[in-house]
């Protein structure tokens, strides 16, 4: 039987973390390993982790510095790979998986593969907000033929890319395409990675696999929302996406992105100082082009 390593990346979220971990451990199809990557939290997360340490299959990786979501996922996925898992199932530290979320993901991917007659590089869940509505930030982008499996009676949608909130990657996808780019630190790492593995075929969103993303507010990412306190995140986003559009797509996609950022900032009446900082990051993206790290085969 296939083995699964669940990977949770956490940073200073000790209040929500136990609920996240408990949901993983209570899965109807229990993962063989639960890899928890602590991104050098400073809020006492380690006290929480100590309660889980020693439980069967729990592997804790304590990083000495905060490597961002990107670094954390790369570390955790690599660890799952090193442990010999056939799948890694990754999520944030504020994601509560329904008890059958993993089982449905594994089964949904197998059914989709059987129907498509090919291996598919990822399967993601339907992500809800705490009130049961769709989580604005975590909606995958579909393929042109997204209804192909629905037409065959499956509750699975073909997708191009998704966010790192409950995604199942088969081992071969890591072997073939490597790990997420640590250098992205945060934002766009998920989109870059799922687009990268998408070269081997579409992903699938398994609608029967449901998780809840416990965000403060249910709002998507938009450059019109930039302010002084969230600027740092948008800076990473601007640099990473600019780099991706230019180096992995083409100059036209890059130019379109610049226009999109400009229009978003203008629409949100973002102060000029902040706009300037973001455009500097876009320029930084021209030179910034990290290469994927390949996971090591250990077991």
């Amino acid at each position, binding site marked *: 039987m296939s083995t699964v390593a669940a990977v949770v990346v956490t940073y200073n979220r000790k209040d929500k973390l136990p609920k996240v971990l408990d949901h993983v451990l209570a899965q109807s199809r229990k993962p063989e390993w639960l890899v928890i990557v602590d991104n050098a939290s400073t809020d006492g997360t380690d006290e929480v982790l100590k309660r889980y340490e020693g439980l069967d299959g729990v592997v804790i990786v304590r990083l000495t510095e905060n490597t961002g979501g990107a670094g954390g996922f790369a570390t955790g996925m690599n660890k799952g790979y090193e442990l010999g898992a056939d799948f890694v199932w990754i999520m944030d530290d504020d994601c509560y998986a329904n008890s059958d979320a993993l089982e449905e993901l594994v089964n949904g991917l197998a059914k989709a593969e059987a129907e498509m007659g090919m291996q598919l590089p990822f399967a993601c869940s339907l992500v809800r907000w705490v009130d049961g509505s769709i989580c604005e930030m975590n909606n995958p982008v579909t393929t042109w033929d997204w209804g192909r499996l629905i037409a065959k009676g499956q509750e699975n949608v073909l997708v191009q890319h998704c966010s790192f909130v409950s995604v199942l990657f088969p081992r*071969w996808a890591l072997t073939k395409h490597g790990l997420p780019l640590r250098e992205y630190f945060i934002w766009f790492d998920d989109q870059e990675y799922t687009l990268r593995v998408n070269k081997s075929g579409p992903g699938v969103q398994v609608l029967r696999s449901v998780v809840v993303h416990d965000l403060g507010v249910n709002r998507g990412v938009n450059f019109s929302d930039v302010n002084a306190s969230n600027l740092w995140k948008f800076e990473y986003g601007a640099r990473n996406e600019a780099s991706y559009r230019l180096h992995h797509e083409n100059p036209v996609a890059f130019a379109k992105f610049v226009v999109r950022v400009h229009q978003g900032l203008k629409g949100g009446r973002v102060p000029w100082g902040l706009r300037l900082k973001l455009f500097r990051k876009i320029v930084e993206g021209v030179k910034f082009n990290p290469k994927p790290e390949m996971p090591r*085969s250990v*077991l």
Partner: protein
Amino acid sequence: MDKLPEIVELLDESGIGLADGEGLLDERERRILIGAVNFHALARPGRTFRITVLRGPRGTMPSLTDDRTRHIEWGDDREVVGSLVVRSTVQTTSGTNPPEGLVDLAVDLGGEPEVASAYHQLPGLMGKVRRSVRFFAPVQFDVLRQYRTDVTEKRYRKREVPKKAPVRITRGTTATGHGATPAIIFGIHWLELGGAERFALETVQLAKEAGFTPIVITDRPSTHPWITRPELDGAIVVPLTHPVSPEQESAFLNGVLSAYDVRGVHLHHSTWLAQRLPWLKSIRPDLPVIDSLHILEWRTGGFVDISVRMTNVIDHHHVISPMLRDYLVGKQGVDPAKVELATLANLTTKGIGQAAAKAKSDDGPFTVAFVGRFTQQKRPYLFLQLAASLKGSASREIRFIVHGDGELAGEVHGLVSRLGLSDVLELRGSDKPVAKTLADADVLVISSDNEGLTLTSFEATAAGVPVVSTDVGSQASLVAEDLLVPRHPYPFISTAAERIRTMINSPEQRKTWLDEQAGKAAAFAKLPDARTWVRDTYEGWLK
């Protein structure tokens, strides 16, 4: 001493000593000769052969099955050391009698095995330049080699290996019957020292224990020093020398298939047999084929990519490391159901204990060891550079052991004195057991630019010695994370030196790394065992 197998009848002999061992040939030569006889007897059933046996100067390769054996003229330096008349008792096409008449063959056994000096392996002007650069600037030479590896590797790995189309028929047409003795065909690179060869011979032994006659075919030029190994007693060994004419190739394989009840094929790094698998599968689609793979080679992919190319005519790819499994399944899209991971953990660790390691005192010099053949792949010269770097910077008395021999022996000896290491470095040959070196060592260094999963890493773990290794092949399966060091020469030397200095200064850190290594070894040892898998597979072929 080996007797002629049942597929031939001895009519007369001179100088060979098949009956009483009293002859001009030694045991290795006699077995090589029998190997040649096996080939001709199987390729030309029922015929009678008079074989003139030649011997060449030291280091020359045998000529046993190629077209030259039909020539009754030979080189000036070949001496005649025997003559043999045998008749093939192999029956093939029923009802037809083989043509009468004697077939005259001249079989050249080659010379005594010789460790070829790398100095002579690069002929021509370019060779002269290359060996001079390698001798005088080995590290810089290696830097260039590693860059070349990077470039070709990057280019090569981008493309998927094309796969041979499958054989669609499920039954081969029958031209002849077959013998009653169950047999397994083995394809082996050559019968020389090597990890893959060691395992190959173990499987030959397993086949015998399961009740099969092993048909062992080698396809590389060699003097086959291992042909005298006891695992090969009772096996039909056929050391091919090329070029074999096409009609002889099919005649030989037909001979095997009709003389024996062949139940399966097991490849161990055999290009010749791999390339004939589509034909074999078209003749006998029912014949199960397994291919054991050990190492993924830089630049060419080597046997692994041949295996990928032939995947449609191979039933099981047996891999000995997780890395090879992931390469086949993840990179090359081979059906996971056809890939069997079964490891050689602890193949050579019998008799190695930790007693010596535990008894070692912390007062003596810190000992850094290298164990391995002196070849370009193992890069002993990098170890010597590392030794030179450590000698000048260690906080404690330090000494080095270099245990091995091989084609770079000249370079190694020259470099030891050039780097001023003579007073702190001990060279050990194969007369000393590896276990003794490991017992003396505080750390083992593996400087290879490519490996599968080194058996010495298992041995070191058994002996309680931490391993510092280049991060190549499957070394990550056994070596502690921090002790995996870059393949490129300068980063290799600086990182390895830094880790070893840490060990010298902190016995606690050395122990932490050793514990991590032991933990990895224990987890690795729980993976399926190759011998068990092979034994079960063979037993399945008996049913």
